[in-house]
């Protein structure tokens, strides 16, 4: 593992973001939209609800955490798509760069961009709607770690899909968070889901985060064992996603996809 080569991938992404307002704005725009939309909704629910439930940490906090997951995933895929859009695979993969170094570069790029979004979200949600992550205690750290790792796994999985099926398959990647969200109970407890959906939920690490988050807000504690399960699943998905990407890369090198990527298929 050569860290200078990994740094080159990160630096490339930094140059692109620094030089383009079109890449800077999405780091903030959707965050602002989500916080404003869900912030006012929770404020309204607090005002009309007869219960003493505080919807701000319950709903706005959940949306913020889910946004963090999406930023992490998109951080990885966007850094990868830059090579897709610039048709840069031949140049990149004909260098001494290894797959581990390349993926590490994508992940570090994602950490940087998602952290910018997270800090901006937190500040906005705290200043305007009074949301504080202190409501979740120290467990916010493993919560975010699980979401971060699952975001990395989904991002790498998405990159592998686009590498295999060509630039047009970007379409498959953007809706992944929307497809996953009903199963992980971002806005509602898993208990409201039908049995077959709950079985899928148990396989998805964010389910344990959002269930745990609601449990803390309702009772002040949670079963930490379930969080370990979520964390283990997230680690497993990262490993599987890396193996999947590596397998697709070797397929692409064997079939000539890398050399003729824009053709989308060489079979």
């Amino acid at each position: 593992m050569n860290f200078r080569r990994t740094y080159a991938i990160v630096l490339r992404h930094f140059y692109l973001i620094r030089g383009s307002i079109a890449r800077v704005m999405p780091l903030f725009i959707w965050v602002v939209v989500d916080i404003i939309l869900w912030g006012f909704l929770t404020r309204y629910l607090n005002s009309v609800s007869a219960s003493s439930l505080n919807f701000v940490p319950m709903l706005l906090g959940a949306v913020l955490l889910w946004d963090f997951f999406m930023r992490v995933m998109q951080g990885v895929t966007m850094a990868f798509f830059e090579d897709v859009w610039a048709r840069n695979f031949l140049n990149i993969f004909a260098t001494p760069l290894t797959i581990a170094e390349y993926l590490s570069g994508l992940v570090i790029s994602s950490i940087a961009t998602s952290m910018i979004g997270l800090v901006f979200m937190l500040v906005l949600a705290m200043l305007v709607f009074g949301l504080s992550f202190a409501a979740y205690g120290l467990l916010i750290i493993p919560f975010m770690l699980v979401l971060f790792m699952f975001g990395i796994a989904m991002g790498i999985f998405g990159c592998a899909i686009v590498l295999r099926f060509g630039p047009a398959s970007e379409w498959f990647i953007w809706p992944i968070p929307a497809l996953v969200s009903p199963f992980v109970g971002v806005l509602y407890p898993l208990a409201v889901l039908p049995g077959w959906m709950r079985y899928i939920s148990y396989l998805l690490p964010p389910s344990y985060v959002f269930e745990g988050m609601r449990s803390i807000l309702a009772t002040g504690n949670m079963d930490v064992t379930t969080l370990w399960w979520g964390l283990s699943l997230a680690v497993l998905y990262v490993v599987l996603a890396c193996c999947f990407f590596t397998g697709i890369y070797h397929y692409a090198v064997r079939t000539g996809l890398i050399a003729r990527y824009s053709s989308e298929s060489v079979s």
Partner: protein
Amino acid sequence: MNQTAELKPASAISVLAARGLQKRYGAVVAADDVSFNVGRQEIVGLLGPNGAGKTTIISMLLGVLTPDAGTITIDGIDLAAQRSQALQHANFAAVYAPLPGNLTVIQNLRIFGMLYGIKNLSARIDDLLIQYDLTKFCKSKCGVLSSGEQTRVSLAKAMLNKPDLLLLDEPTASLDPAVARDIRRQMSDFATYGGGGVLWASHNMTEVVDVCHRVLFLSHGKIVLEGNPKTLPEEYGKRNLEELFIAVAREPLALELV
């Protein structure tokens, strides 16, 4: 006119050894038992009609296409077993692989310099900007440069690591004659004084005669002819390399020594 092809390779040590390369795409045979060497200080022309397998061979040498069979060693390092180390000794410029247009010249050179592990990178970039007359474009995005300027940036990238093996796929295709001549001279100087070997794919036969010490003619994925580009046409009863090329492209099996 003839600049450097008169210079004989000073060393017979191979920087590239390809042995028994095979590649099929379904029923299409893109490379069929291809074996050749490129020596130090040698420029080898890779010639053949469209679809003959030149780009397939270059892709295999760059490690972006795995051969179905055969081995490739670059500077004595097995590409399949030690891909990263082997590619440290190689580089390439191809007309179909421009550098990202959304980065500036200097940003592209810095990133690829880091990927190739260049020491004293800033000084190396400064040298290359001067050598390829790119100083005034160093802060321009590559996408806004003319195709000739982009080619020069690709060549500067290809020279970042002073490669032992330089692969060029039609490097002068988009250059005006004056710049193309300068580039040919620079590549010849690189082989002569830098000690690297060059594999040069081209359809420009005048250029090939000008710079190449040896040529390989490909047809249907096979090397059908090999020799000195100055003497080879006469050996096969042709007036020049272009006539020989056309004969190889049309009827490779009908070629006979005279």
